């Protein structure tokens, strides 16, 4: 039972991070390699909101997540908008540069030391008993719940709301969408904002569970194979990819060798690239275009 819980928690972490990669890619065809850094910045923003709303964890998390959304929109408006019309590679390199900049900013503003937002919020991350003798921390349980709510919300947003339909249209055929009066820059900015918002939620909940420091950037990158395995333009794929990668990782740690944890996501990715290069739920056409 504990193994199943571990798989669900890890899959939720990867899924919540991976949906940010997918949102930006399916809307603007840009691989955001600064996603881990943006996630980390939002998690650090929680430290700031924690000092403002000490004793009110939900308010502090909500405020930091909203700030994350604003940061994502700002990144698009200030930096990525300028890359419109440039080669995709140039935009990807811009995200790499952005990542380096953000890492420096984090050290300057919050220092390099290990931080504990839960402590700042006066919140205790208790262990919750589950059937079958399994245990899960409160933060991990919140993470699983948040992932479920975020994915349900995103599916509803993309399917039923005007801005969601615009976002899908911009992703499928930007030229036609623009000709129909959709403001592409607004749609792209929203995608960046939502991606940073969801990534930030993951970052904050990981930080509440086990602390916060600069290795969070690498955790952001570890979720990238999950997005690729599922198909980079599919939210369902991100969910499935996260589950496949997490299951492989947890089971190999437990039954084979813990050292494999680092390489498992990439082994799964290589296997997927050999069998079905466009991912479990990705579009073959998209791969050709890439």
């Amino acid at each position, binding site marked *: 039972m*504990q*193994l199943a819980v*571990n798989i669900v*928690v*890890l899959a939720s*972490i*990867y899924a919540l991070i991976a949906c940010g990669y997918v949102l930006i890619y399916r809307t603007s065809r840009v691989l955001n390699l600064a996603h881990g850094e943006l996630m980390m910045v939002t998690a650090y923003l929680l430290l700031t909101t924690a000092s403002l709303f000490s004793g009110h964890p939900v308010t502090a998390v909500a405020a930091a997540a909203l700030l994350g959304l604003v940061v994502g929109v700002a990144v698009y408006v200030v930096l990525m908008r300028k890359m419109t019309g440039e080669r995709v590679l140039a935009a990807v390199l811009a995200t790499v540069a952005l990542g380096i900049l953000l*890492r*420096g900013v984090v*050290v300057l503003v919050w*220092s*390099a*030391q*290990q931080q*504990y937002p839960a*402590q700042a919020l006066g919140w205790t*991350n208790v*262990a919750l008993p589950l059937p079958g003798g399994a*245990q*899960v*921390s409160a933060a*991990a349980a919140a993470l699983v719940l948040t992932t479920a709510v975020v994915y349900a919300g995103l599916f509803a947003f993309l399917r039923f709301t005007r801005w969601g339909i615009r976002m899908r249209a911009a992703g499928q055929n930007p030229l036609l969408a623009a000709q129909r009066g959709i403001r592409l820059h607004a749609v792209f900015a929203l995608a960046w904002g939502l991606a940073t918002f969801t990534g930030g939620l993951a970052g904050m909940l*990981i930080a509440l*569970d*086990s*602390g916060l*420091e*600069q*290795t*969070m*950037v*690498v*955790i952001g*990158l*570890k979720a990238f194979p999950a997005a690729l395995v599922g198909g980079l333009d599919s939210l369902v794929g991100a969910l499935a990819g996260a589950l496949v990668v997490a299951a492989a*990782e*947890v089971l190999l*740690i*437990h039954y084979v060798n*813990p*050292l494999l*944890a*680092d390489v498992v996501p990439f082994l799964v990715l290589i296997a997927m690239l050999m069998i079905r290069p466009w991912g479990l739920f990705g579009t073959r056409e998209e791969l050709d275009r890439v």
Partner: protein
Amino acid sequence: MNRALALTTLAACLAAGQPAFGQDAYVVGLSGALTGPAAATYAPVIEAMRAYIDHVNGKGGVNGKPIRLIVTDNQGEPSRAAADAKKLLGDKVLILLNSSLSSTYAPMIAESKRAGVPLFYAGAVCPKETYPPADPLQFCSTAFGAQYDSQFAMGFVKEVSKETPRVGFAAMAIPISRGEIDYAEGLAKQMGMTPVDKQIIPPPTPDYTPFATRLKDANPNWVYSWAPWVTQVRTFEALRRLGWKGDFIAYAHIQAEEELERIKDPGLYVFGTNAFFQDDLPVHAEIRAATHRAKLNYPITQLTEGFIAGMVLEAALRGTSWPPTPQKVLASMNNLKVDTKGLRGGPIEWTKDNHFRTRQYYRVYRWDLTKNAAVRVKDWTALDVR
């Protein structure tokens, strides 16, 4: 006239390939992980050392000359460390300092050997080359030392256990940590303990529970971890969240004192060689004052290691007559004794053959729920370094 003279002097310095400051200061260069994934461990050490040097310079410097510390950020990456070392040697530094991951050592060692400039590990784990018989150019003041740490920790576990210890091990997937845990596992067997499981955990791990689950399933009554603090503490907390009730012993890195207070778990033992601030020694007041002046935003409890490195550096330069050369500094470092004023259990002594220390002193702390404070479980215990 004066301006013309100054310009001429500056031009002469540049022509000689020496920076102008080289004339009036002891110039030392540090390559460290100020940013990057390992920064939490190394940045406070570097900043504390910088504060200490400012403190020394404020009191008139060494032998009437200031110390100039040039700091470069290698982010824990070997390629950057190599570039830093080349740049620093170009600046004619007297000593190269490393405060970073062990993966950055090789390129700095190569540059140090090429230039004949001593390499001083300050806050970075001491490589075996600093133990007797020491490499002529490598020196180390850092608290933790491979093998000696595990000898002490395993001895302590055996000493305090009422039944035969069943020991689980946790390391970070970096060579130095894995090697030490392998060594400790062998040592535990030799000492009659039962090793039950060993987890080698990759540095960027989003969830430690899968590793802790396997460790817990092996049913250890002790777990020993010798790794960067993040791996040690996250493994411990994951074990506790799974309901594991055993005892955990880990190395007391710079974060240990405040972390014991955060976690408040009497089953978490930390052993180390630096005195906690709860001792409130006169030298602790000095550290407080120096770091207050430098306006550092790290907890005071994390700054001892950098302060000690600064004390050692000051002593090495004090034994170097003016004008300084790397050879003179090397001679001074080969015959060094630094009074740590109670920050360690004894002095740091370097000889021609021993660039680590002649005796390594350990203490063990844990949290006491009744006193609501960290308490010493075992006071200074010395191991001879041979």
